[in-house]
């Protein structure tokens, strides 16, 4: 092992790292996003693939949780039917703050090809969405990219949620 001599005395006797509360909190939040396992249709298969060993979500600190009360990210993957909309909103309400939503696939974004009476035409009618992923179905790489974009967004946020303005959090 390399021998380091830490000069405690010059730093006031302790190893010190300087940071701000915002950065510290956002570092913690963005690197352990725990999504709620919420597959609704065929897009769920791609979401599961991203969680599995080949695409390996865990290396981003993203571990799927089976309970809304332990998760801070909701990945709405698939077709949201009108009958189910109520429950999607209820699960969203049960998640503790702060929380984020990714809308995955064209069905969740706009209703997609299901331009019918039984499909919610875009999940943003029900819950506020942070990231929309286009595609039918989006590849796991796309979902990973979306999670990384979300991390970028979280790192821009202020720990005081009231200070966050929409235009400050724009990614592109």
């Amino acid at each position, binding site marked *: 092992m390399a021998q380091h001599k830490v000069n405690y005395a010059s730093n006031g006797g302790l190893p010190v790292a300087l940071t701000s509360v915002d950065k510290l909190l956002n570092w913690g939040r963005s690197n352990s996003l725990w999504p709620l396992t919420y597959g609704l249709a065929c897009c769920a298969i791609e979401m599961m693939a991203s969680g599995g060993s080949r695409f390996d979500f865990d290396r981003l600190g993203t571990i799927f949780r089976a309970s809304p009360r332990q998760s801070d990210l909701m990945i709405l993957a698939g077709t949201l039917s*009108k*009958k189910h*909309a*109520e429950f999607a*909103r209820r699960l969203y309400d049960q998640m503790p703050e702060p929380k984020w939503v990714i809308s995955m696939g064209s069905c969740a974004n*706009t*209703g997609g090809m299901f*331009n*019918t*009476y*039984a499909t*919610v*035409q*875009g999940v943003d*009618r*029900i819950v506020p969405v942070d990231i929309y992923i286009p595609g039918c179905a989006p590849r796991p790489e796309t979902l990973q990219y979306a999670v990384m974009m979300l991390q970028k967004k979280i790192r821009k946020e202020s720990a005081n949620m009231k200070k966050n303005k929409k*235009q400050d959090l*724009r990614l592109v």
Partner: protein
Amino acid sequence: MRKYTPKDNVQGKAYYTDRFWVAPRVPRQVVEDEHFKAVVEALGERVKEAYVEINNLVLHIDATQNYAVLETLKDTCGYKVCSEISAVDYLAKEGEFEIFYQMLNLDKAKRVRVVCRLKKGLAIESVVPLFKSANFAEREMYDMFGIKANNHPFLKRILMPDDWEGHPLLKTYPLQGDEFASWYEVDKIFGKAYRDIIGPENRDPARIERYDTKRFSRVGYEVSFDTDISGGETKTEIEYSSTFLTDYNTGTKQLDKRK
């Protein structure tokens, strides 16, 4: 197999243009099969019409006798499986529903379709005591067409929510939903007062908002995010990358020496 139609020019020319084209009917054949003859014999008077369509015996009966006919089919003819029950909406043309029962005989590998007509507003007798599979099928028939089944143990909507209005498979039901359907999730979750805030559904997937610079930009007229362009915008010349227009065929530099 379906008849082959050449499709290499379909995008240039529509191969299907006749609006009033009627699909050709499957030919109706006389009952010749020994087993099918025995089935028609066993049912006797109750059969109004019988013919064979693609190895499928079709029996027209009276809607009031459906239970008795299915019981005979099950007990004496060996049709132990009822694979599907549903209805077809002929209300506009004939003022009736057509209800059909698709039956299967596993020993003889034969299929029979029992068909009956039901006026609007009437109920049909449930066949759940004979076939357990009829339970869900009749609930679906009720959900989709509003046809009630008498003496059904648990007649309740199966696919649509319990408080749904209307029966979606009726020909009169709009595909994109009526007023109730289009506001269903908003009314249910947030209440009617939120209709104004959330706004109507966007049913046009290609809709573009001309003055929305947050989500749309016009090629050749790009402006920065969220600029007000209601007074018009200036044209920006498209800049091509200098390598994009390079002609590699006439250059002096030869990249591949093997040539």
